[in-house]
């Protein structure tokens, strides 16, 4: 992408290619919204990705999956947006790496579970259900903003923790603590709101 994408006009792309790209806008917007809570920022990232895609159409030649290609471009735009956000609004919910006191209610003083976690029954069958995905999204929204951001960069964008640390200016240890915190909160939330309902 980069410099090349700015040199040619998006209008140079053939109409049918433009249309195929536009058809994927709703998917891309959803993808971006999952990572960027700010709707305007998600719109901007998608718009930037679409423009870059149209201008760089030649790079698509020979690839079989337009959506995968566009999603790859969008991931870069999302990371750019996350980096901007981190710079403009230093997070208030980062906590300190050592602070795991929020787990104190989950474990007794010897570090054993207060409530032994039960197995979830046939979780895979939930994946195809709209209501389950809505419940998962609600659990994600309930996480503190930066915790959710780190978790989604790891699990949704598939970035390595070293990249996440670099973009957000935090240490690896801090990153791991936040990821642990997110996973623990999400398992509890889904346990209460879905699997034990």
């Amino acid at each position, binding site marked *: 992408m980069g410099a090349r994408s700015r040199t040619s006009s998006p209008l140079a792309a053939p109409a049918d290619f433009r249309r195929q790209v536009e058809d994927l806008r709703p*998917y891309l917007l959803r993808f971006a919204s999952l990572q960027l809570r700010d709707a305007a920022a998600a719109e901007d990232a998608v718009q930037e990705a679409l423009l870059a895609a149209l201008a760089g159409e030649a790079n698509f030649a020979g690839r079989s999956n337009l959506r*995968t290609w566009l999603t790859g471009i969008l991931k870069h735009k999302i990371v750019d947006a996350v980096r901007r956000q981190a710079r403009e609004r230093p997070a208030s919910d980062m906590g300190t790496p050592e602070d795991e006191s929020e787990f104190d209610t989950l474990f007794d003083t010897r570090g054993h579970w207060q409530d032994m976690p039960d197995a979830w029954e046939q979780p895979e069958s939930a994946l195809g259900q709209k209501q389950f995905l809505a419940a998962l999204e609600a659990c994600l929204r309930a996480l503190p903003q930066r915790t959710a951001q780190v978790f989604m960069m790891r699990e949704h964008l598939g970035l390595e923790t070293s990249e996440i640390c670099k973009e957000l200016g935090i240490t690896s240890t801090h990153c791991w603590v936040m*990821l642990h915190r997110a996973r623990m909160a999400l398992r509890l939330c889904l346990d209460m709101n879905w699997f034990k309902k």
Partner: protein
Amino acid sequence: MMLSCREASRLLSQGADRKLAFGERVALRLHLAICDGCTNVKAQFEFLRSAVQSLSGDGDEEKPA
């Protein structure tokens, strides 16, 4: 040295993000062998990963030719 569940859950999470050291892997395996709660949590952490990936509809992605 036996891990506590608290420590085991931390290693389960970190194991998804970095390669655990040999000693950590051994300690975790020993703990999981006797702890149903942490074994369940391990499966749930793994499930979370696939669940998040299915949020944007990657499941119905057309297969590359």
